[in-house]
Every structure is written in structure tokens, then in C-alpha cells.
């Protein structure tokens, strides 16, 4: 009987209820907020719901030794997390993104690609800011990439350079991507005049099938010869796009943009979420990362808009500078924001399709940026 009580009390001492402290409660709260934003607000639900639930899973306090926690060698979460730490998941997601992305509008008006380049200023300024806050260079580079506004790219680079920061960086990146409709509009309005916001864009020309087929091949060669370290991400992105466009590998493209990307999204989301175990996540560093992350989105938006205005100084048919904000990628949310802000000024101005051009070029731009930072950090 004594034995029975002992066993029971021993069991109770190992329950989550007993081991719960304020840090886990904070993290569970954050997880619930993510899930709430994803479901009720429909902010990037495909990412916020898995990450949010992953945060819950990672923050049930568990006793060490059984192999339950994501940082224990033989746990299921650890095995699934290997896809993150090895860098395999993000390229597979890029494969799927490639197989679902239509680059037509970008091909129709290549000038708009430069907006996708300009928005990457956010990456490098944030990198400087992180250095200034005292982060080590590899950490600073990983934090900078939040400004790329591209989840898989951020996770990929961080896994290579500063694996310990995957949790906070991923959470920061996805938080701000979800908050794009909140962060961007004021900056866009501040930096543009009403007249600029009313600029109408010409209907894009039709793009030939051959162009669409040649683009992923040429794009791959040009980008990866310039920045070989972007190969895992861009290689898969362009490969997926070739599968989509070439017309003879439809079943592979279907697999890439359905079962592959969806399965990997589930596994990446839940394990990245679970990697935010309270003792690893709730540090001063994380606070710094969140501050810098907000900054980076702001800088990226501003850079895109200002660069559009600079271009306008040189060309006759003006670009609507709101389009610059779409260069931060966060596909397709920032393009949607552009449409929305333009729509507020003039309900008949339809900017969405045009915004897709800087939007998808922003994805390429941030992957190149990640490649550059990676290669600089390994010297």
C-alpha cells in the first residue's frame, strides 16, 4: 500500500501538470495565439496552425530520458526534425512552390523584378543591426534573412549557420509574414503620394509557352552560377517550375505541389514549432530577434517602395510605387496588400497581377541573398 502511494506520487511528479512552470505557460499561450490567428483570422493558416500546434507539442513539459522532447536523440520529434536540421525540408517546399508558381507576369515585365531585388535591402540592414546588437556574425546573418520574408529560406539558412536559433527565427519570420497586412500599409502610405498610388499599370502581355519553359532553365543557370550557395533552394524552385511548365511531366508536378509540399509543410511546421521549447526559446536573444524582425520587414517594404520611385525618375510609363512593397515576397500576402491599398484609393485599379511580379522575384532575391550570406559566413 505504501508502495502504491509511492508509485502514484512518483507518477504525479512526472506529469506535465506538476512540472509546468510560467515559461511553459507563456509558450503554450503563444502556441494558442498562433493557432487562433491561423484559424480565426486566416493569416497564413497552412503555416500558423502547424507551427502553433507544434509549439504546444514542444512545450508540454516532459521528463528527460524517455525520448519525448525534440532535443532528445531518439525521440520521434527529433527524427522528424532532422529534415529541418539537415536542410532537406526547405528545398522540398521550394520544389512544390516552383511547381505551383506562375512566373508569367514577371516574364511579361522583367523590369518589375528589380523591385524584388530592392526589397532585399531589409536582409542586409537587419544583418548590420543584429551585429550592432552584439549577435555573432553567423547569428546575425540568420536574423537578417528574416527580412527576406520567406519562411523556408530563413529556416534553411538558420539550420546551416545557427541551428539553435531555428525556433525564434522561424517564429519571428512567420509572425511577421502573418502580420504583413498590418505592417506594410502604413509604410506604403507614408512613402507615396495619392497621385502615385493612383497610377495604373498596363495589362501585361501574354507570355509564350516556350518562354515559360526556358525561363526555369536559364534562371537556374544564371542565378546559381552567380551564387552557387543558393543552389539547394533555387535549384529545386526552378526544377519544380520546369516540371510544371514543360507540359510532359504533369504527374510529377502534381506530386510536387500536392503530396510532397503538403507533407513537408506539416512536418516542418510541427517540428519547427516544437523546437521552441521554453528553455531554449525564452531568452534575451529571442527578444532581440523579434525587434530586429519587425525592423527588417519595415526596411524591406520601404526599400521596395522607394526603389520603385527611383525607377520612375528614369522611365516614361511610371510604375505604381505600391508595387515595391510586394518585393518582400511573403507570397502572396504582400501582393494582396498592394492590391488592397491600391484598391482603397481607386476601387477600379487592379494591381494584384502586377504585384505578383516583384512578389515572386522577391523569392528568388532572398534565396540569392541567403546563398551570399551563407558563403560569406563560412570563410
Amino acid at each position, binding site marked *: 500500500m505504501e508502495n502504491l502511494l509511492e508509485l502514484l506520487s512518483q507518477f504525479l511528479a512526472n506529469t506535465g501538470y506538476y512540472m509546468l512552470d510560467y515559461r511553459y505557460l507563456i509558450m503554450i499561450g503563444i502556441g494558442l495565439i498562433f493557432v487562433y490567428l491561423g484559424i480565426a483570422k486566416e493569416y497564413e493558416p497552412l503555416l500558423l496552425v502547424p507551427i502553433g500546434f507544434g509549439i504546444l507539442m514542444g512545450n508540454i513539459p516532459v521528463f528527460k530520458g524517455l525520448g519525448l522532447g525534440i532535443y532528445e536523440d531518439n525521440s520521434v520529434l527529433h527524427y522528424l526534425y532532422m529534415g529541418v536540421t539537415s536542410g532537406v525540408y526547405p528545398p522540398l517546399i521550394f520544389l512544390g512552390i516552383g511547381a505551383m508558381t506562375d512566373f508569367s507576369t514577371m516574364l511579361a515585365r522583367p523590369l518589375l523584378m528589380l523591385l524584388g531585388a530592392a526589397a532585399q535591402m531589409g536582409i542586409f540592414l537587419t544583418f548590420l543591426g543584429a551585429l550592432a546588437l552584439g549577435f555573432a*556574425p553567423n547569428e546575425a546573418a540568420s536574423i537578417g534573412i528574416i527580412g527576406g520574408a520567406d519562411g523556408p529560406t530563413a529556416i534553411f539558412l538558420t539550420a546551416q549557420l545557427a541551428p539553435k536559433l531555428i525556433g525564434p527565427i522561424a517564429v519571428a519570420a512567420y509572425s511577421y509574414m502573418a502580420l504583413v497586412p498590418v505592417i506594410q500599409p502604413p509604410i506604403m502610405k507614408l512613402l507615396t503620394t495619392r497621385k502615385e498610388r493612383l497610377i495604373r499599370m498596363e495589362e501585361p502581355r501574354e507570355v509564350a509557352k516556350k518562354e515559360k519553359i526556358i525561363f526555369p532553365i536559364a534562371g537556374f543557370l544564371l542565378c546559381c552560377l552567380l551564387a552557387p550557395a543558393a543552389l539547394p533552394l533555387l535549384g529545386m524552385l526552378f526544377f519544380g517550375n520546369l516540371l510544371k511548365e514543360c507540359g510532359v511531366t504533369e504527374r510529377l508536378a502534381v506530386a510536387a505541389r500536392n503530396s510532397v509540399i503538403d507533407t513537408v509543410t506539416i512536418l516542418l511546421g510541427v517540428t519547427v514549432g516544437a523546437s521552441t521549447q521554453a528553455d531554449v526559446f525564452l531568452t534575451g536573444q529571442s527578444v532581440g530577434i523579434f525587434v530586429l524582425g519587425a525592423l527588417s520587414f519595415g526596411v524591406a517594404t520601404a526599400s521596395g517602395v522607394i526603389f520603385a520611385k527611383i525607377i520612375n525618375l528614369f522611365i516614361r510609363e511610371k510604375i505604381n510605387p505600391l508595387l515595391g512593397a510586394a518585393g518582400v515576397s511573403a507570397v502572396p500576402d504582400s501582393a494582396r496588400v498592394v492590391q488592397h491599398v491600391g484598391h482603397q484609393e481607386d476601387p477600379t485599379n487592379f494591381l494584384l497581377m502586377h504585384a505578383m511580379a516583384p512578389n515572386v522575384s522577391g523569392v528568388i532575391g532572398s534565396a540569392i541573398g541567403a546563398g551570399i550570406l551563407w558563403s560569406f559566413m563560412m570563410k
Partner: protein
Amino acid sequence: MTGLEAIAAYNGWNIAIVGISIVFTGLTVLALTIAQLHKILNFLENRGKVKQKQEKDMPVDTAGIILPEGIQESARHFKLLIDYMGQPFSLPRLLEFAEKCGLNRPHSALNDLILSGAIEPDGKGYYLWNKKYPINL
């Protein structure tokens, strides 16, 4: 180490400048290439169109031959499958499809269609639907 000192110590300014320059270079080169690509393809296509036009001017012998009654039904079924698969199509894949879809005796039905000329070889091992047999689905 923090502040400007840290940035300088880790070569931050240079990394940032070189970094953003390369991003710009990459996307600019890509943009220029795309613009050129469009022109080149247009040029090639225009040459192609001239040829095509000449071909188009040739009279199409007859529009709408009527298939023997017995295979009208299966012709319609096969045409559906072919539209789905795209042309030119390979026979084995078509048969596989036909079987999966539960068509009646796909083997001999297909044979009839080939005999009647509704399905034609394209000369490279693949097959095409003869456009003279318009099937209203």
C-alpha cells in the same frame, strides 16, 4: 562587442554592400535575359508563322467524315480520353486509360478506330486524333 564597432570588426559594411550588389546583379542579369529571350523567341516564331500560314492556305480536303455507326460510341469515349491525355499520345497509355475507365473491349475498339483512320500515327511512334473526325462530346 556591440554597435558600430561590432559591425566594423566583422566586416559588416562590406558584406552588406557586396551582398545587396550581388542580389541586384543577379536579378538584373535575369531580367535582361528574359527581355532578350522574349525578343529572340518572337523573331523565331515570326519566321515560323510565315511557314505555317503557307500551310494553312492549303485547302483542308474534307471537314467532318462520319464514322461507321458501330464505333461512334467508342470513338466518343476514346476522344474524351485523348483530350485528357493531350496529343500526340502513346497507344499503350491510351489503352491503360481505357481499361481503367472500364471501356468495353478497348483493344478491339481501338483497333477499329485505327483501321477507320480516326487515330493516326504521327510517324514518330506516337498517335494523333484525325481532325477530320470532329466528335461532339
